[in-house]
């Protein structure tokens, strides 16, 4: 079973965002880079799947500049068998990243593909859908549970729906599953894992290797802006009962939101 996990390296959630002078992105010096938190759940689910089935290889794939190899090594330290880097210094849009990932999945004969439900930098939550459609695989988003049938022909997954509902989805395999927090608890890298990861050979492709040398992004980003600062408002005075009364009056009469 070829278990593929698609991951992205993103700025740590503690990052205070600063916009570049040309407003085409954010300042990346001083950023602490981490594996997208949702992709950590995807890695764990890939490893768990292999353990439950007692067979298979877990391969992690990422697209990005040289620094992203660090994310691959972390995944190997957690237990992934193989690491694949699509190396590019350009900033690609979701479409082109998904194209590259889909090409790698084809080369690796993916039987099941896990990824996080979204990356916490660009927040598009779209890569999984593109990859699935490009491969003509079924997909499920916001997955919080995954069971694979003993003959490995299908998976039964639980999807978080609106308002706390859960959908049970049956899908044939291969499929793309975008996982959410709550599906598992990602393991820490072990010391032998870290040693192994240091020496692990990373398979590297360029976009040209994947037949995408002539492809361009379909969307163009510009004019990054920080949100307008909210002015600090008023603190209500008096005892708790007076404060509660005053708050309701203000929400009703001044803010007009209730």
């Amino acid at each position, binding site marked *: 079973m070829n278990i593929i996990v698609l991951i992205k390296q993103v700025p740590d959630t503690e990052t205070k965002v600063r916009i570049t002078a040309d407003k085409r992105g954010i300042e990346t010096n001083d950023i602490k880079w981490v594996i997208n938190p949702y992709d950590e759940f995807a890695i764990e689910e890939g490893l768990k799947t292999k353990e439950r089935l007692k067979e298979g290889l877990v391969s992690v794939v990422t697209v990005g500049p040289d620094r992203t190899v660090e994310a691959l090594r972390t995944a190997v330290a957690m237990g992934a068998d193989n690491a694949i880097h699509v190396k590019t210094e350009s900033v690609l849009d979701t479409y082109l990243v*998904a194209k590259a990932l889909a090409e790698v999945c084809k080369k690796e004969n993916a039987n099941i593909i896990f990824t996080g439900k979204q990356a916490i930098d660009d927040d598009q939550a*779209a890569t999984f859908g593109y990859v699935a459609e490009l491969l003509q695989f079924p997909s499920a988003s916001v997955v919080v549970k995954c069971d694979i049938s003993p003959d490995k022909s299908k998976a039964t997954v639980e999807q978080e729906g609106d308002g706390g*509902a859960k959908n049970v989805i049956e899908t044939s395999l291969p499929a793309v599953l975008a996982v959410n927090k709550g599906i598992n608890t990602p393991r820490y890298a072990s010391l032998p894992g870290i040693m192994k990861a240091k020496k692990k050979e990373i398979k590297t492709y360029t976009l040209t290797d994947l037949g995408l040398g002539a492809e361009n992004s379909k969307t163009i980003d510009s004019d990054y802006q920080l949100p307008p600062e909210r002015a600090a408002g008023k603190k209500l005075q008096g005892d708790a009962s007076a404060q509660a009364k005053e708050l309701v009056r203000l929400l009703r009469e001044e803010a007009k939101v209730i």
Partner: protein
Amino acid sequence: MGNVFVIAEQKDGHVKRVSLEILSELTRQGVAATAVVPGFGDLSKVTDNLVNHGAAKVVVLEHEALNQYNTEAYTNALHQYLSSQNPSVIVTGATSHGKDFLPRLAAKFTTGIAVDCTSFQLSGDKVSVRRPVYAGKCSKQVEFSGAPAIFSVRPNVLAVQTGSKSGSVEKVAANPGTVKAKIVSTVASQIKKVELTEADIIISGGRSLKSADNFKILTDCAATVGAAVGASRAAVDAGYAPHDMQVGQTGKTVSPKLYIACGISGAIQHLAGMRTSKVIVAINKDPEAPIFQKADYGIVGDLFEVVPLLTEELKKLKSQS
């Protein structure tokens, strides 16, 4: 502007408000749009609503398989119809369904996507959208180099208004194609909950709630005004609330009319996820909590004392109106 399509979303014969929000905004920009609604059965309420909010034309993509949402069936049916219509813009709401099928549709059209936009501008042949990134720590403008331009709009951001009410309604037999993944059952939440991302009012609790049971204080308060209940990451990680209630960078990004943060200090990740709320109220014991910097109204006090009093006041208000 060429052919503009709004994929409208309905559930059990009721249209989602975000579909009307998008049509209202297009009306304001003077753009004539066709609303496309996949479904089956009596959808007259939905089509009336879409016409009333400015759809120049409503197309019902009709098939039994589209009665319930299905990723592949919706994608296939929408693509089959839209690809015959030479679309220049396709837009839908950034709901859980919209986010699920739209990337697949964009892949079918070999085009780009912008998800969860908070504004858009259609003028001449140019489509330009703005969308928050890094959970709202900043936003960016996105333009499209290919056609159609495909994007989704965040619920609750754009105002609803009625339109010309002169649109026509047409039914088209849809083709849902081959489906490999099916929803076999749905387990509703034990408590009927308002979906966070579509809620008008949200009351959120942090770690100072101290237990899952104590969230009842917030649930009671929320019930008086039909609000949704949210939680900070700290409360979720402590096991006081499930992850689907988490607001912030690794949870949901919300923009309700009113956000009441109870016992939430205001970590950068949490602020990112709720800062576009129209009115923010903070209730916190610590007068130095960063949340007060963002709050329109602040109460320095014990939430266990203040929130039940607030519930009583809201009940009084409801009984008067």
